[in-house]
């Protein structure tokens, strides 16, 4: 696609529910990132995919968070047993991986998650 698409744009759920957030990156971008942004803060790294595999998942806060990218394009961030503290904007970004390492990210508009 022309840009990074994230769905849903807004999600309101109740504490304890399961949530899936989807990211459709720019076609051909092999690198895909998930970040979380709380109000007034900078984006906080969650996980990074290179192709289908998670190259770095050190930012996932706990085992309730999981992300997949089975075919190396679309990615889904899954959150189990949601807690009020999970409320934030979840940002996805993609990048064409280059050997120069100059990874410039293109971000989606984000999915705003509110846990009541």
């Amino acid at each position, binding site marked *: 696609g022309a840009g*990074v698409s994230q769905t849903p744009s807004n999600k309101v759920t109740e504490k304890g529910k399961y949530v899936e957030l989807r990211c459709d990156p720019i076609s051909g971008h092999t*690198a895909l*990132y998930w*970040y979380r942004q709380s109000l007034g*803060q*900078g*984006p*906080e*790294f969650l996980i*990074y995919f*290179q192709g289908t595999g998670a*190259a*770095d998942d050190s930012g996932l806060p706990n085992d309730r968070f999981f992300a997949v990218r089975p075919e190396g394009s679309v990615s889904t961030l899954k959150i189990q047993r949601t807690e009020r503290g999970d409320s934030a904007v979840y*940002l996805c*970004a993609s990048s064409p*991986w280059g050997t120069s*390492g*100059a*990874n*410039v*990210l*293109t*971000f*989606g*508009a*984000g999915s705003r998650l509110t846990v009541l």
Partner: protein
Amino acid sequence: SQQGEEDPQALSIQEGENATMNCSYKTSINNLQWYRQNSGRGLVHLILIRSNEREKHSGRLRVTLDTSKKSSSLLITASRAADTASYFCATVFLTGTASKLTFGTGTRLQVTL
């Protein structure tokens, strides 16, 4: 965790003035990038400076990097109301095939007419 700290946290200037934002970081980097975020939207890449570069220009933007002090600055000249946004620095550290961008806390810039 957030590696970069931007300074100031908030900046209010009048149209036509210059705006300077600073970023300090903690570990060695491969490159440093600046991004802009309008309220309620995703981030947009502005400029990248590599660790072996000291200064970079792009239009009204000027970025400097001092690796000995682990700091960078972003200068926006002749600011416009449309420059009102939050600005974030992001540091990149390469480990093998992994390239993770770590963002700072941001500077909120308000440009008034």
